[in-house]
């Protein structure tokens, strides 16, 4: 149904209410423009992919058409094969992420407020952060074996630092003038923390959360490509190995989707918590 059809049907139903219909149409047009400006290029890219692949302009063995990928995803998810992989991947990254949140946020809030501890720990934190978690993965495997523990731990390790460092800097960057203002009104340390420091640090904590979520996904895939027999990351490698290219892309798309969902969920939470500031995606 095109917009003209919508227009006509409203005119037919609403009768005399032509003004309303026009307004509605304008709003629909505005929404369409907004949608196009935001997702137009993405849609064009997918259409181009589909056309190029099914038209034979590009090697369809490497880039199968979108519909083949989607049907393979459909079969994988609803046939249950990919579902197990998704579940185990979510469990690994979810466990690691939650553990990182539980460690990094309280520790960061504490470290950000106690200058000597922060200064003593900063060099070692910087060192750990600069050491790629993937480079340490073999060490974790030696320590924890090739099973779930080393996978969860390497993801935890990599997600811990962005969150910890952002929480610390969030606390440190809270305007000292606001803290002084609270002190003038006789606020105790816990009150200053609850009413000034914590809310002031939240935007920075969310930056850390979003970075950590991205990192968690990255490390998930990497760890699943090494010595795993389940998981979405494993399926990417496995499908490629078995030359099930649509399935490989289906797994890649699922990973991209998981990343998007995680990011949107965090942006949504941030919007709820930080209505006072403008949040951009």
């Amino acid at each position, binding site marked *: 149904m095109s917009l003209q059809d919508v227009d006509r049907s409203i005119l037919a139903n609403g009768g005399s209410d032509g003004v309303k219909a026009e307004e509605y149409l304008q709003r629909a047009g505005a929404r369409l423009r907004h949608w196009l400006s935001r997702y137009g290029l993405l849609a064009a890219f997918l259409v181009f992919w589909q056309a190029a692949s099914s038209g034979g302009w590009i090697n369809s063995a490497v880039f199968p058409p979108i519909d083949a990928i989607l049907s393979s995803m459909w079969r994988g998810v609803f046939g249950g094969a990919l579902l197990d992989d998704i579940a185990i991947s979510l469990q690994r990254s979810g466990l690691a992420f939650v553990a990182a949140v539980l460690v990094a946020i309280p520790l960061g809030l504490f470290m950000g407020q106690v200058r000597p501890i922060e200064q003593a720990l900063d060099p070692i934190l910087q060192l750990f952060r600069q050491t790629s978690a993937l480079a340490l993965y073999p060490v974790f495997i030696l320590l924890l074996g090739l099973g779930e523990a080393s996978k969860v731990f390497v993801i935890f390790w990599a997600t811990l630092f962005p969150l910890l460092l952002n929480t610390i800097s969030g606390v440190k960057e809270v*305007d000292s*003038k*606001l803290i*002084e*203002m*609270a*002190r*003038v*009104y*006789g*606020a105790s340390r816990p*009150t200053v923390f609850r*009413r*000034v420091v914590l*809310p*002031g640090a*939240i935007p920075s904590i969310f930056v850390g959360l979003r970075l950590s979520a991205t990192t968690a996904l990255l490390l998930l895939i990497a760890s699943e490509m090494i010595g795993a027999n389940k998981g979405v990351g494993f399926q990417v490698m496995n499908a490629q190995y078995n030359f099930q290219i649509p399935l490989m892309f289906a797994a890649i798309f699922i990973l991209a989707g998981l990343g998007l969902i995680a990011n949107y969920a965090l942006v949504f939470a941030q919007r709820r918590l*930080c*209505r*006072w*500031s403008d949040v951009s995606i």
Partner: protein
Amino acid sequence: MGDVETFRKGEIALRDLSKSFQIGGRSLRVLRNLNLDIRSGECLAIVGASGSGKTTLLRILAGLEAADAGKVVIDDQPVRGVGNERAVIFQEPRLLPWQTVLENVAFGLEVRGGHARHANERARHYLSLVGLADFADAYPKQLSGGMAQRVGIARALTVQPEILLLDEPFGALDAMTKLTMQEELERIWRDENVTMVLVTHDLEEAVYLADRVLVLPKNRDGNPKIIEIDLARPRDRSEAGFVQYRKDLLREFGLH
């Protein structure tokens, strides 16, 4: 209640107050044996060249900074740190960006242990006193500079202090807003019966608002000077007496 009123009246005595700072290994003497009595309910302006120690003095009065020697006595009690009888208005509004205007105004009273409902009621009262009743639910981001400063003033008034300490409260505002705010501040000062210590760069502001003006010396070895402003209120900025006081003050700084 009556007892409290007669006992605590917002009287400030400075006795031999001295303060130095260490800057780059050298000691910089900012205040030297300052003695001053600030009367209950008066408005004292403090003027002086940049770096003459106005902010330092005000921060000592607020209890945010400790003097090296001497003492501050408020209502016969020596000052140690911040206190409930004082409120400070800074040059910047210092509002919490994550709280609404009303929550900001109620902040001081809540922190001091007021019940939220009571604090909100009183906050509403002072918010309308500064003309911002309609903005109770706005966030600080949505205010202009002058409005934000007014919210800061309402927050200070909400704790009903005996002493209001102001450090260049209108320094960041445009000339028009500044004049309006000075008039509003005078009205509030009269209605609330509060002792006011006002640090300012603006000599006209000092003459308009103050009963007495403390001139801190430009040269650190000089002595501070007190000038009494004997003009009827509300004052007329263009009247001869007003202009004369302004001239006298300018002359204190070697200006014309």
